[in-house]
């Protein structure tokens, strides 16, 4: 065997990373053993099928990945902070921007949103669980081990280096001879299957498990956004599945899909990638819209303005998102007619998006606004996202795009859309729902400190990129000479990035501080909120609701509080719960081994793990564990305890 394939040579950074991975792993293992937490970890987390815990694990993983993607970002900013920097070489810079983009979108933004949706959606619709709790665990572990597979590429074998869009022929074996792009195809494939399963699971959950009386047009806006997002997932992810499979065949088995000879066609990759890739950005942005809608309504103490038009604009956006993909390669010779079509459809998306912006503004109008941390993020989102949107329309004009194409202008644009549209949203949602899950708020003072650091530094870091782009600085350029004049603005941008880091550090410190010192909530409704998730106690009991709520209006909890409409009319009875299972975790591990073996073309372990996957699936099929019941008395006792009464 050729052991050299596994080695990544030279760089002190890589040795540093290896050392820290090894140390962290040893630390975790020793810690768990010392505190005798293995059993706890296995019983309560690794085998859990509880949607709230799965959601928390998604969010933890996403935060870890935010850290990893952030380190990549800082390395890039440092490398370009001044002319002729010698921090990263070209190859390493390529790897860093590739993993940064991939990780931020697929392993940070999307799982963060899926995490929030796991925690909140069943509660918002008054359900006891998702439709398929065990499949939900499968989804999580596939995502998690997919992410891990991508992460080890940094230290074993080498990272992908052809950009997060992995254009061919650059991503082919010929031009990217390391195993990096094998990791790309397999890590994304594994986590993508997990995402697809999530899509199916939540469509069924939302359509079939809503509390009695909750008509579709009475659903909270976040749930609506999640429903539409999951429909996009179900139709977009299979395209990615195919694209990645073809990539794997080309790289591992020498097929001719994207080659330059023998009838291959590199543009096929660009088309397949963006048929999935463009909807993907809406997969992360639509739930963000949902989060903002909840927060803005809650902290303006008003009904969301234009509920129906909010829903329809999301539906229109989701349809259009499938019709715009070719705006990512206007300059690759597809002719004026094609470019015009994609130009018009792209600009059309601005219309429903504009409708939403105005709805939020009208919701704020005459509202009794309280400026809490989640609300601040939501308010900052509106103008910043609008800048992103307007520059998006500039980019959408095919003829003008010949000027901006592949410059820093584009990089500025998509960060101006993605950071307020996804990152601010998940942070806002995180602050907003945190007390629901843990029973205490994050500290508001620290929260606001972090907010101002993040929002100001974001603009300091990314606004200069618009100017640099117009000055002609190209994207993915690892160094430049002093004569270009890019130096000063790049330095400003670097300083902004450091400011962002400070903001995130304060945010994380806030979690620690609040865990220790924040006062605990008593009634589960710290914000005086509107939707059903606030109607149950915090922390949330395993069964969510002791009694399934009866919904009569939109914002059911709000009207229950205001108009004294009863929510819980039935008596407490025994509650059916699914049992925990270790099989999803094991399945994830085997998928990881299979992926790793394929990356290095180790056929025997690959085949064995393929068989292993089938065996676990069969074991899941033969499993006759139908869960268990929590007796009514136990539910009553739990409820009393949560209300603070002694049993």
């Amino acid at each position, binding site marked *: 065997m050729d052991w050299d394939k596994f080695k990544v040579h030279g760089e002190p950074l890589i040795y540093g990373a290896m050392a820290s991975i090894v140390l962290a792993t040893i630390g975790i293992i020793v810690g768990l053993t010392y505190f005798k937490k293995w059993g706890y970890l296995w019983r309560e987390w690794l085998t859990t099928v509880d949607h709230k815990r799965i959601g928390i694990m998604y969010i933890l993983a996403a935060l870890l990945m935010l850290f990893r993607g952030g380190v990549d970002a800082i390395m890039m900013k440092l490398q370009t902070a001044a002319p002729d920097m010698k921090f990263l070489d070209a190859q390493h810079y390529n790897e860093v921007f590739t993993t940064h983009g991939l990780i931020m979108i697929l392993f940070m933004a999307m799982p963060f949103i899926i995490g929030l949706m796991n925690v909140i959606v069943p509660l918002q619709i008054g359900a006891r669980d998702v439709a398929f709790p065990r499949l939900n665990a499968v989804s999580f572990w596939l995502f998690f081990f997919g992410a891990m597979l991508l992460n080890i590429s940094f230290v074993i074998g080498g990272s992908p280096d052809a950009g997060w869009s992995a254009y061919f022929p650059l991503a082919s074996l010929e031009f990217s001879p390391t195993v990096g792009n094998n990791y790309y195809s397999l890590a994304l494939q594994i986590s993508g299957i997990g995402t697809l399963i999530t899509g199916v699971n939540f469509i069924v959950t939302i359509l079939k498990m809503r509390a009695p009386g909750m008509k579709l047009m009475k659903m909270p806006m976040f749930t609506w956004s999640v429903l539409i997002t999951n429909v996009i997932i179900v139709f977009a992810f299979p395209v990615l599945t195919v694209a990645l499979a073809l990539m794997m065949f080309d790289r591992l088995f*020498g097929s001719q899909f994207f080659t330059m000879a023998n009838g291959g066609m590199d543009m096929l990759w660009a088309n397949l990638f963006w048929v999935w890739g463009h909807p993907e950005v809406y997969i992360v942005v639509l739930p963000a819209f949902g989060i903002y809608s909840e927060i803005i309504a809650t902290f303006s103490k008003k009904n969301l303005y234009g509920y129906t038009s909010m829903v329809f604009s999301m539906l229109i956006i989701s349809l259009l998102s499938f019709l715009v993909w070719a705006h990512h390669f206007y300059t690759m010779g597809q002719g004026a007619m094609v470019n015009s079509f994609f130009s018009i459809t792209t600009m059309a998306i601005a219309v429903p998006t504009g409708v939403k912006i105005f709805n939020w503004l009208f919701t704020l109008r005459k509202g009794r606004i309280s400026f809490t941390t989640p609300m601040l993020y939501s308010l900052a989102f509106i103008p910043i996202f609008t800048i992103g949107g307007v520059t998006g329309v500039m980019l959408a004009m095919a003829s003008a795009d010949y000027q901006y194409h592949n410059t820093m202008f584009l990089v500025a644009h998509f960060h101006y859309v993605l950071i307020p549209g996804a990152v601010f949203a998940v942070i806002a949602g995180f602050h907003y729902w945190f007390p629901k899950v843990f029973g205490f708020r994050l500290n508001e003072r620290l929260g606001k400190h972090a907010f101002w650091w993040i929002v100001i530094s974001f603009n300091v870091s990314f606004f200069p990129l618009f100017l640099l782009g117009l000055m002609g600085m190209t994207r993915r350029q690892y160094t430049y000479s002093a004569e270009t004049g890019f130096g000063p603005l790049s330095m400003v941008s670097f300083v902004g990035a450091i400011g962002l880091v400070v903001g995130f550090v304060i945010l994380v410190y806030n979690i620690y501080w609040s865990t220790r010192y924040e006062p605990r909530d008593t009634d589960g409704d710290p914000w005086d909120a509107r939707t059903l998730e606030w109607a149950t106690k915090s922390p949330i009991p395993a069964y969510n609701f002791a009694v399934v709520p009866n919904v009569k209006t939109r914002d059911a909890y709000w009207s229950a509080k205001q108009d004294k409409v009863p929510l819980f009319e039935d008596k407490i009875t025994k509650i059916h719960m699914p049992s925990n299972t270790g099989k999803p975790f094991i399945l994830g591990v085997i998928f990881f081994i299979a992926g790793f073996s394929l990356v290095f073309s180790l056929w025997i372990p690959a085949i064995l793990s393929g068989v292993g996957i089938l065996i676990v699936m069969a074991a899941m099929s033969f499993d006759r564990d139908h869960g268990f019941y929590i007796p009514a008395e136990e539910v009553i006792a739990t409820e009393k305890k949560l209300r603070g009464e002694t049993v």
Partner: protein
Amino acid sequence: MKIDASKPLEYSTEENSNKIFGFWVFLGAEIALFATLFTVYFVMVDRFASGPSGPDIFEIGPVMIETLLLLTSSFTIGLAVHAMRHGYQKAMMVFFGLTLLMGLGFLGIEIMEFVTYVHEGATLQTSGFLSSLFVLLGTHGAHVTFGFLWGAAILIQLKRQGITPATANKSFIFSLYWHFLDVVWIFIFSFVYLKGLM
């Protein structure tokens, strides 16, 4: 688990009807998957470089047998579900088993066909056209293989547990899957083989 006797067994619990609905959603994703593969194939169909083209390698004989087997098996799985609705466990299992056997026959012929292609110098590596042909057919074939294993697992459960809400639900979902594979095959038959032979 509440069993609603007014509904067919496979729909009789909430969990069961959710599973069937969920499977329909999943089939939506499968349609997207095969639609993408067909698109790739249509893009590639004339890009055979210096390798053979469709008419050079396709043979109608084995393909007709494959079609016949798969269509008949789609019919027998329908009969199995029909028998299940009447509670005839024996008949159900016979039809179910026949379905799986025909699936196996289909796979055998497909594998032989692939071997012939490769002997004629038509491999995955030869041209864009052949790559897309093998991946399209192979994905369908892999689905049939998986269906065979899955069906066998259900058959064992039927034998052990009889027709229960759980096994009825699984069998019904399996039948949806099997019909779906049949529909995909009809597209392959028409747009790959017939069109390729014309």
